[in-house]
C-alpha cells in the first residue's frame, strides 16, 4: 500500500516535528508552547441547528414508507476522511494550528476490508499570516513547513481578531482540506469503478461525484433538517426500516442531489434522531423522476444491509456503518 503524503515531502511533518521546528525558529519571539488537545470538536458543535424546506421529488406529501424487500449487500467500498487540528504554538496570542487530514477508500473483498488504491494524508500549518508579526512570518518561512494562510478567509476591513475566531477559521480550513481529499478519492472511484461506493457524508461538494450512479452519500449529523412542520414529525417518527419520501437538496453553488431520511434501527424510547441517517444520491433526470422511489428503496436496502456488524464502541454506532468505522480506524492507524 502506498500512502500519498502531500505538501512537504522528505520532511517530518508530524505534530511533534512541527512543534520542534517552530520552537527552533521562533525562539526569542513572543511565542509560547501549544497544546495536544484536539480542536475539531469545537467547530462541529458550534454550527447552529436549523430547519430547511425541501422540495419533494417523489409524488405525494412527505410520508414514511416501508422499505420493501430484504436488505441487500451491494456496497463494494466505503469512503471516509478524518481531520485533526492541534495548536502547535501561540504567537502573540494567535494559535498556529497543525492540521492533518486524511481519506481512504476501503474496499470489501470476501467480507474483509482492504485498502483501495492509496489513502491520502496531508499535513499543514494553518496560520493567519496577516495577523502575525513580520518576525513570526519570516520565521515560518524559514521552517520549510507548508503554511496555509487562514487569513485569506477574512472579509472586509472588519477583520475578526478574536483569537477564537481565528482559531475557528483555521479549523474550518482544515475541514475544507479534509473534504477536498475525500472528494478527490471519491472522484477517483467514480472514474474507475462502477460498483456502489458508500460515502460518509454528503455528495454535493463535487459535481463529478454528485452525478455519479455509483456514489451514495450517507449523512449522520442532523444540524440541518430538511423538513418542517408535519413533514418533520413524519421524519422523526420513522420506524426502523422505513424511509421518508425523496426530496431535492439544491444548495447554492452546489450540485442538487436527491435525498431521503432512513431509520436504520429501532429508536423506541430513544432520542428521535437515533439510528436516523439522510441518504444522498445523484439527482435523477426529469424522465427518471417518477422512478426515484424505486431507486430510493433499492439504495435503502443496501444501507440497511450494513446495519451489522455494529460499529461499537464508536459513540455514533447507531448511525455509523461498520465499513465507515473501519475507514476511521485505518486512518487513525496511519496518521
Amino acid at each position, binding site marked *: 500500500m502506498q500512502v500519498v503524503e502531500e505538501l512537504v515531502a522528505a520532511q517530518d511533518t508530524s505534530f511533534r516535528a512541527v512543534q520542534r521546528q517552530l520552537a527552533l525558529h521562533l525562539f526569542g519571539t513572543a511565542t509560547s508552547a501549544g497544546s495536544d488537545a484536539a480542536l475539531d470538536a469545537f467547530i462541529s458543535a458550534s454550527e447552529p441547528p436549523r430547519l430547511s424546506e425541501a422540495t419533494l421529488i417523489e409524488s405525494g406529501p412527505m410520508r414514511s414508507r416501508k422499505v420493501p424487500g430484504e436488505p441487500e449487500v451491494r456496497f463494494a467500498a466505503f469512503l471516509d476522511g478524518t481531520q485533526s487540528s492541534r495548536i502547535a504554538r501561540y504567537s502573540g496570542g494567535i494559535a498556529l494550528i497543525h492540521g492533518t487530514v486524511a481519506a481512504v477508500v476501503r474496499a470489501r473483498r470476501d467480507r474483509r476490508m482492504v485498502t483501495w488504491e492509496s489513502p491520502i494524508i496531508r499535513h499543514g500549518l494553518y496560520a493567519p499570516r496577516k495577523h502575525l508579526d513580520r518576525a513570526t512570518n519570516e520565521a515560518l518561512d524559514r521552517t520549510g513547513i507548508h503554511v496555509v494562510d487562514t487569513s485569506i478567509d477574512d472579509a472586509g476591513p472588519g477583520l475578526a481578531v478574536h483569537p477564537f475566531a481565528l482559531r475557528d477559521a483555521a479549523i474550518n480550513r482544515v475541514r475544507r482540506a479534509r473534504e477536498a481529499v475525500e472528494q478527490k478519492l471519491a472522484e477517483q472511484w467514480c472514474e474507475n469503478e462502477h460498483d456502489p461506493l458508500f460515502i460518509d457524508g454528503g455528495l454535493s461538494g463535487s459535481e463529478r461525484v454528485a452525478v455519479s450512479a455509483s456514489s451514495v452519500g450517507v449523512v449522520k449529523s442532523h444540524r440541518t433538517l430538511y423538513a418542517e412542520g408535519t413533514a418533520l414529525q413524519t421524519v422523526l417518527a420513522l420506524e426502523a426500516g422505513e424511509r421518508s419520501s425523496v426530496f431535492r437538496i439544491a444548495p447554492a453553488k452546489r450540485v442538487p442531489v436527491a435525498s431521503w431520511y432512513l431509520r436504520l434501527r429501532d429508536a423506541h424510547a430513544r432520542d428521535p434522531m437515533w439510528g436516523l441517517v439522510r441518504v444522498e444520491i445523484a439527482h435523477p433526470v426529469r424522465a427518471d423522476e417518477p422512478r426515484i422511489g424505486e431507486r430510493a428503496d433499492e439504495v435503502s436496502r443496501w444501507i440497511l*444491509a450494513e446495519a451489522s456488524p455494529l460499529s461499537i464502541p464508536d459513540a455514533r454506532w447507531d448511525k455509523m456503518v461498520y465499513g465507515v468505522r473501519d475507514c476511521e480506524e485505518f486512518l487513525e492507524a496511519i496518521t
Partner: protein
Amino acid sequence: MTNDLQNDRQQPRVLGRVVATERRPNTPHEFHFWTALDSPVGIGTIVRVDGGTPVNGVIPHIYGIVVEGFSYTDLQTPLHDVLGHDGSPSAAAHAPTQRTEIRLYTAAVLRQMPEEPLQPVPMGEVSLANDDDVSVALRMDGYLKEGSRTGIPIGVYRAGGTDAPIYLDADFLLGPEAAHLNISGVSGLATKTSAVEWILSSVFAHFPAQKGSVASVCFNVKGPDLCFLDQAGDIDDADRALYEKCGVEPEPFENVRYYAPFKADGFTLNTLRSNEALSENVLPLTWGLREVLQYAEVLLNKDDVDAKADALIDFIRERVVDREFSDPDLLGAKRHLVRSFADLEVWFRDVLSAVERTNKESWRTHHVATIRKVRNRLSNISTRCAGLVTDAGTVSDLPFGSFEDRTVYVIDVASLEEDAQDLIFARVVTKLREHLEKRDLGVNHVVVFVDELNKYAPGDGQDTYVRKMLLDLAERGRYLGLVLFSAQQFRSQVHRRVVGNSGTALYGRMDADELATPGYAVLSPAVKTKLATLEKGQLMVRHPHFTQPIFVRFPRPAVMRGRDGVERFPQASDLSLDAAILRSLRTLDPSITINAVQELLMLHDEQDVIRARNATMREQPKDVLKFFRSQLRPLIAAQPVIRQVAAPIKSAPGDDPYGF
C-alpha cells in the same frame, strides 16, 4: 508450487511484522509479530526476523519459535456482538463485513545473529525459516560440519514449505558431553516405543564411525512391544519420505537377539515371541547361584537383610560358594562344594543339623535364627524366580565381552514376576557397567532402553536397588558410554535425578493433569495445549543445543508392531518336554529328529534332560546329539530281582484244611 517454494528459498516471503508496545515490549528472549489471517504460522513454527538497522555494521537476524498466539477483533465486549446480531448466532453469517481481526504471535528467541551485543529484538520483517535458517536457529550448524559431523536425525520439522531434518548431537545424546534420552506421553498412541525404535534405527545409521561401536539392550516390560524388531512392518509413503529426508533406510533391525527366562516348567521360554518360525534368535536367560547371590539384596527387602543376615550372606558368598568348604569342628570330615541352589540347600541342612546336634546357639558368630532366616530367604529365590534362577546352577547369559556393533539385545521380562524383573535389571546393567569400565564389553557404547520408568525409578516410595542402579546409570553412565533411553507416562512421577540427567527429553501427547504439574511451568499455555493434542508421530524435543522445545514429526518404525507380530506369529502353545528339547537342539542342528529326542527322553527323568539341554545350548558342540547324550546321567543296567521263598515252619498235612 515448486517454483513458489524455490522462490521462497531464494528470497523468503514476508509473513509478518514485528510489533512492540510499551505494555508488551520485545526483549532479548521474546518478541511479538502479527501476520495475515491466512499465514501458515502456528505454535511451534520457526521464524526469522530481519532487523532494519545495522548493529556494529551488521544487520541482525533473529530466529524464534512461536510459543503463543492471540486473535481478537475490534469488538469491545461479546455483548456487542450479541446486540449486533439480535441475539441470533445464525444472523452473523449474513453480516456483509467481517470484523477486523488480528493474528498476533509471541515467539521465543532461539538465536540472535550476531550473538553479541545481545539486544532486544528490533522491529523488522518476519519470514518462515528455511532449512538453513532452522540449522542456524537450533545451533545444528555446529555439529553438522563435514568432517566432524555428529548429527543424529530425530525427525523432520515441518512448517509452510519448510521440511527440515532435525538432528541431535551424538556427543550430547550418547555422551560424553551429556547423555540419555527420556520420553513421556500418554499410553496407547504408539508414540513412546515407536519413537525409541525409530531413534535407535537413526542412531545405528548415523552414529559417527570415529566414535566407535554401539549396541542396545532393550528390556521388553510389557506385552509384545519389542518382540518383533527384526520383522518388517507396514509403513506408508509419507513415512518413507521422512526416512529419506533423515537418511535412514526403512528396514527392520538387522541384528537382534532375544533373551527370555524359562517358565516354571524349566523348558518353555517365557516370551510372546515363542512361534517356532522366529525361534532362531531367541535364547534362554538362566542364572545359577553365583550369578544371583551377588544381587541378593535386589530380592531381599530391608527387613530381610539386616546387618546380621548381610554378614552371613557375605560369608556364604566369600567362603562357601564355588569353593570347597569344610569345618572339622562342626561337620567333621564332610566337605561341601556349593555351586547351585541345590548344593546350598544341602550345606544349610548339614550346618543346621550339626548346630542343633551340638546344642549351640550360634556358629561362627552367626546366630542359628539368622542362619535359618537366610536359608529360608535364599532357598525361596529359586522358587520366586523359577525359570530364571535354576537350582542346578545352569547359566545362559547375555554375551558380555562379545557384544556386537549395531545389534539389539532384547530381554523379554514382560511375563516375569516383579522380583525376577528387578533381578534382571540389576544384574544386566551392573554387568554392562563393569564391562564398559574395563572396556571389554565388545562395543564402546550401549543404549539401555527401559520403559515404565514410573515403576522402576519412582519419585517417591522406598529406595530400591533398581532405582539406585538407574540413578547411578543416569548420573555416571555418560562417562562410560552407558546410555539410558527411558520412557514413562508421567514424567512428574519419575525420580527427578533420573529425568534431570537426561540431556534429551521427548514429549508425545500429554495428559492435561500431567501438564498442570510444576515441571511444565516453563511451557506457555499454547505449547501445553499443543502437547495435549499432539498427533501420532509428533514429538516435542528438548536438547541441550536447542534453547526452546521444538516440534518434529518422525516416521513409524520400520519394524513390525507388537500387536501385528502376535497376530502373524501366534504364540506357540505350551510345548511338551520332547518338543521343547527338539526345538532347542534344532537351533544348533536342524537335522535332529523328534524320534531321536524321544528315545532319549524315555530313559531319563525330566530334570536330567533339561540339565543336559542347557549344557548343550551353552556349549554349542559340533555334534549336538552326541554331546546332549553325553550330558545325560549314565544308565545303570537293571538287575533282575529274585524272590526269596521263605521255608514254612512246618508243613501242613495235606488233609488238614485249617493247617493246624
